[in-house]
């Protein structure tokens, strides 16, 4: 069926709302046809991932829209940028990169978007509500908004998120529509001990495996006997959206559209059912590391951006201790969370331990790592997934407690007892 546009859509397309809106609508309409949408729908918010600087083309796009006078028409948050605005000079970030990344950030800011500069906007005051139609970019906020909050967004690519924010419209397809939010495959946990289920290190591993299994389908997890924390769900989703194209998952009894197994599948039978065993999970945990038994150069926490609860957890682990002088310890977070962590006293023990902070960006989005860093350790499944390709470093995956212990010892230590 052909795409039907409203009079207002037509007006935007014909330039009555200015040239930036016209350009955004022109791209949106072509994309709506790619998505085979019948119509566009109104959105109440957007999250722009296009703010991340990756090169001259993305910068040209941002500055073209800004120079045409683009303004967002719905409340819009901004994802990480390519530079920590106030601290990049403490790291080997090339000046040219920093300047261009800043220009790109400024272009999006000039459109009236909120300069949150975070990949965890859902852990700020700008969190969407259940059932709201939104257009979000960045794979991890997308999967969190859909799965944990029950807001509705399709998996928007960079460059399109801003077109939705400017026009306030999105193609009425995919996860915006109730019928496409039903589970497709059922994943049962067979023999996972509760002690492991309660541990943070379990969720990135489960997410990694879920992404590999589900690819772009909606997986439903059944058999969790503990209630995961928000940060555990965040880690699960971010990793599943890295190893696969997962934009929505359900956990029976936990996530809002999966109060029961039947609800998760909207009464339909699963296309496929599988059991995950400890053997599968152990094998996957090993895939998250490309190095082992190494001397350690750096610990990096905070992808997605560290939350206040994670700062609290880290402060408890690090208080009164000091890291090994040869190891660097970095936490990536947002300005918003940093300020609250400072105000509530959980930042100081982390800094006293020897950790440094980077805000607005992360090690994957800005070229900040010194070349002598060869082996990094993290509790983040997303860092584990992308750092070998993007950074060319060896990588060890462990829990937050493992990371702290290893930083103190100066070499990799992992508690294997939970995974036996």
């Amino acid at each position, binding site marked *: 069926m052909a795409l039907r546009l409203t009079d207002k859509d037509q007006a935007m397309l014909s330039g009555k709302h200015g040239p930036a809106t016209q*350009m955004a609508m*022109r*791209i949106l309409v*072509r*994309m709506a046809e*790619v*998505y*085979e949408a019948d119509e566009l729908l109104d959105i109440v918010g957007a999250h722009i*991932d*296009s703010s*991340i600087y*990756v*090169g*001259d*083309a*993305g910068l*040209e*796009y941002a500055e*073209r829209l800004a120079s045409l006078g683009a303004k967002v028409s719905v409340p819009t948050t901004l994802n990480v940028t390519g530079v920590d605005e106030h601290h990049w000079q403490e790291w080997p970030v090339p000046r040219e990169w920093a300047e261009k990344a800043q220009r790109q950030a400024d272009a999006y800011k000039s459109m009236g978007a909120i300069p949150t500069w975070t990949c965890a906007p859902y852990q700020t005051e700008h969190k969407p509500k259940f059932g709201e139609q939104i257009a979000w*970019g*960045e*794979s991890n906020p*997308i999967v969190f908004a859909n799965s944990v909050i029950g807001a509705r967004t399709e*998996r*928007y*690519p*960079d*460059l*399109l*998120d801003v077109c939705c924010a400017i026009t306030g419209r999105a193609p009425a397809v995919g996860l915006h529509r109730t019928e496409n939010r039903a589970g497709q495959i059922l994943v049962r946990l067979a023999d996972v001990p509760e002690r492991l289920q309660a541990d943070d290190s379990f969720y990135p591993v489960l997410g990694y495996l879920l*992404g590999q299994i589900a*690819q*772009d389908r909606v997986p439903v997890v059944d058999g969790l006997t503990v209630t995961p924390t928000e940060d555990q769900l965040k880690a699960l989703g971010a990793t599943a*959206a*890295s*190893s*696969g*194209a997962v934009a929505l998952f359900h956990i029976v009894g936990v996530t809002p559209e999966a109060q029961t197994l039947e609800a998760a599948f909207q009464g339909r039978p699963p296309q496929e059912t599988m059991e995950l065993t400890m053997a599968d999970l152990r094998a996957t945990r090993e895939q998250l590391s*490309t190095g082992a038994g190494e001397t350690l150069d750096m610990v990096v926490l905070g992808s997605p951006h560290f939350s206040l609860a994670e700062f609290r957890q880290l402060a408890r682990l690090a208080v009164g201790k000091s890291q090994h002088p040869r190891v660097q310890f970095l936490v990536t977070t947002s300005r918003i969370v940093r300020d609250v962590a400072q105000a509530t006293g959980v930042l100081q023990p982390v800094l006293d331990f020897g950790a440094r902070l980077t805000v607005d960006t992360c090690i*994957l989005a800005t070229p900040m790592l010194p070349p002598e860093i060869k082996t990094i350790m993290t509790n983040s499944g997303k860092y584990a*997934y*992308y750092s*070998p*390709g*993007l950074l060319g470093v060896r990588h060890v995956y462990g829990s937050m407690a493992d990371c702290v212990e290893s930083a103190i010892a100066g070499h990799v230590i992992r508690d294997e007892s939970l995974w036996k």
Partner: protein
Amino acid sequence: MEVIQGRPIVPGMASGEALVTNEPLSFWGGYDAQTGEIIDRRHPLSGQIAAGKVLILPFHRGSSTTTAMLLEALRAGTAPAAILTTGIDPFFALASIVGEELFDKSIPIVSISKEHAAAIHTGQRLDMAEDGTIRSRGFSF
């Protein structure tokens, strides 16, 4: 010459050697826009240069920044000559649409069936027309 009929998502003409994989790929962390090399070290095509070739894969994976990376590659002249996916991949289509909008550089993005994708082998020369037809010597049906 044998012919495969694809469905043009972003129409265009292109010719090049096929580079085929069954594994989805994220261009962010997976594609070097300066060299056109596939750099996802877990991917079967790791180390291959895709610039100027016809890349055939099921769909993209993961990151939203795949589109931005392909746009960089288009501007730098290191993009594949065309991308064929099994099913419609909006992320690749968008990069090509924005490339045309910004600097008049786009590549064909064409959807083909799984059976047709399986009939194409790496190294085979493909000639693609605006209407989505793909010509080559000897597909292995």
